[in-house]
């Protein structure tokens, strides 16, 4: 029997084209932790109390895993640093290109741009590292409203994503930097942005990674002018039972595999799908927006593709 290889060859041996990166955050580790109740955005009510009264033992979720609050920021930064290069390619792969339609619809709905008799807009795009939304909004303002003055400030906690965005901006007509600016900022503080200064706050596929979502919503409320609009595009809950089943199968089985094959990084994509599953439902999130002081119209959200994603809006009055 000695001539037989120690391990039988499996198809995955041929599929693993590049070395898989195993960082400290392995999916095996966070799968072994029992899942806390869904929809509890920060679990100070549960784990925090069990672990004692120390301030630093407050926990939040990182995918299905509970981590101390002070660690999450670094963990998220690490995830996005590792996916920054392949971010858009992977988005296309995972959503079959639909994320482009969602983003286009998001911008068309906000319809940003200076109108006759109005002022140029100042827009804040939070967690907009690669500039996807920022370029779309500037294009919309220029092409639809013939507005060449409105400005976008792109902030992100991750420098690698911002560098990627800045690199991309050089190939566009906004390359001179007069209309688009990139800044490293924590969305919960936004300390470089003055109060009552922005017309529009956008965050696309970013808010679920924030450590403290209510704090980020309060920061958004602070920096918006009265009448300014908070708009959020984010993955949400599928509202048709059978489609939800298919979607769950797809997101937990296919997406991490794709991440492994295309980006050689299974853990980051495992985190992405887990963070999507942990994000509150449309109604709960609309309630959080209301709690932060925004006024919403009707239900306050619009479902995209049966609720795979949703657009939430709120206005500061």
């Amino acid at each position, binding site marked *: 029997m000695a001539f037989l290889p120690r391990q039988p060859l499996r198809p995955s041996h041929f599929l693993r084209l590049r070395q898989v990166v195993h960082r400290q955050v392995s999916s095996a580790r966070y799968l072994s932790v*029992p*899942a*806390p*109740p*869904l*929809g*509890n955005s920060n679990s100070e009510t*549960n784990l925090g109390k069990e672990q004692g009264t120390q301030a630093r033992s407050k926990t939040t979720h990182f995918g299905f895993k509970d981590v101390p609050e002070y660690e999450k920021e670094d963990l998220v930064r690490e995830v996005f640093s590792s996916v920054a290069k392949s971010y858009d390619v992977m988005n296309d792969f995972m959503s079959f290109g639909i994320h482009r339609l969602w983003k286009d619809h998001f911008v068309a*709905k*906000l*319809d*940003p741009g*200076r*109108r006759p*008799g*109005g*002022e140029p*807009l100042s827009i804040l795009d939070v967690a907009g590292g690669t500039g996807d939304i920022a370029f779309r909004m500037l294009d919309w303002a220029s092409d639809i409203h013939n507005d060449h003055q409105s400005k976008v400030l792109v902030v992100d906690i991750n420098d690698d994503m911002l560098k990627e965005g800045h690199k991309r901006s050089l190939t566009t007509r906004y390359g001179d930097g007069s209309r688009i600016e990139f800044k490293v900022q924590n969305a919960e503080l936004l300390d470089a942005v003055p109060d009552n200064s922005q*017309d*529009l706050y956008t965050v696309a596929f970013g808010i679920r990674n924030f450590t403290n979502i209510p704090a980020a919503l309060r920061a958004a409320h602070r920096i918006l*002018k*009265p*009448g*300014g*609009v908070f*708009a959020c595009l984010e993955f949400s809950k599928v509202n048709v039972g059978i489609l939800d089943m298919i979607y769950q199968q797809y997101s937990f089985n296919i997406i991490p595999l794709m991440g492994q094959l295309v980006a050689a990084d299974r853990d980051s994509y495992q985190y992405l799908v887990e963070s999507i599953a942990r994000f509150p439902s449309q*109604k*709960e999130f*609309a*309630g959080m927006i*209301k709690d932060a002081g925004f*006024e*919403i*119209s*009707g*239900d*306050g*959200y*619009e479902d995209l593709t049966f609720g795979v994603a949703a657009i939430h*809006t*709120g*206005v500061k*009055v």
Partner: protein
Amino acid sequence: MNPNRRRLQLSVNIERKSLTHSTLAFIKPNHNICSQFQMPSTEFSVLVRRMPTHLSKTPFHCVRRRSYHSYDHLPYNPYTPSQEKILSSALKHVPEYGFVKQSLVQGCRDAGYLDTTHAVFQDGVFDLVKFHLYKERNKLAALKPQIDEDEGKSVGKRIRRYCTERLKANELIISKWTEAIAIMGLLQNIPQSLEELAKLSDEIWFLVDDKTSDFDWYTKRATLAAVYSSTELYMTQDNSPRFENTYDYLDRRLAAVQNAGSSISNLASWATFTGFASLNLLQSQLSRG
């Protein structure tokens, strides 16, 4: 009671996972559920009931609307004061711009907000259309004392009066109303538009003190909705002074419905009578042997 009966120590290990807001654990005394699970009988058994999740953490549960008309409460208003202000100012711009985003933006400006504020309306211009329908429908109730006095007891006359009052509210924007009809006819907007039409029809029947509780409840509302919507469509093409042709058209439609209604009820009473008569005839023939 058998004193030796073993008392089961119930140690309920409910996983942390199941202790969400949606789970309600309660103890029900003397409920013999244990026999179903071949467990020794106990005085207490524990039932864990799962509440429907949609009831548990809904942030809007406190503002859920009633499904009946309450005389003791103000009607449900889906609009906040600021939204009402924006939308009412936007409607003033409709005769000029039409049912387009421009009107909405002008409304935001007039109400003292920013140009971007329009983005908060999830359905955009359709929200403006819905607001017009909602506002004009709710104005009808205030006319009730006047109409009751003017038109007396006749249901037909009062219905006609409510329809004309509602149509008059469209006079200012009738040149742009085709745009609104086009928006209401979009696939995603059809359910809400039909709902609004049904509500208008129901409102009018309610205001004429209709107390029907049989199948007529539906036919009455359906026929009035059909009459009203066709008249509204006619009105968009009407160039006569003060929309005289439209009101003539409304009269003809209402008369036709009344004729049809009376023919149907005549037919129904004839059919009932004939049916019973033939049954009785058959019965008497059979009993004779």
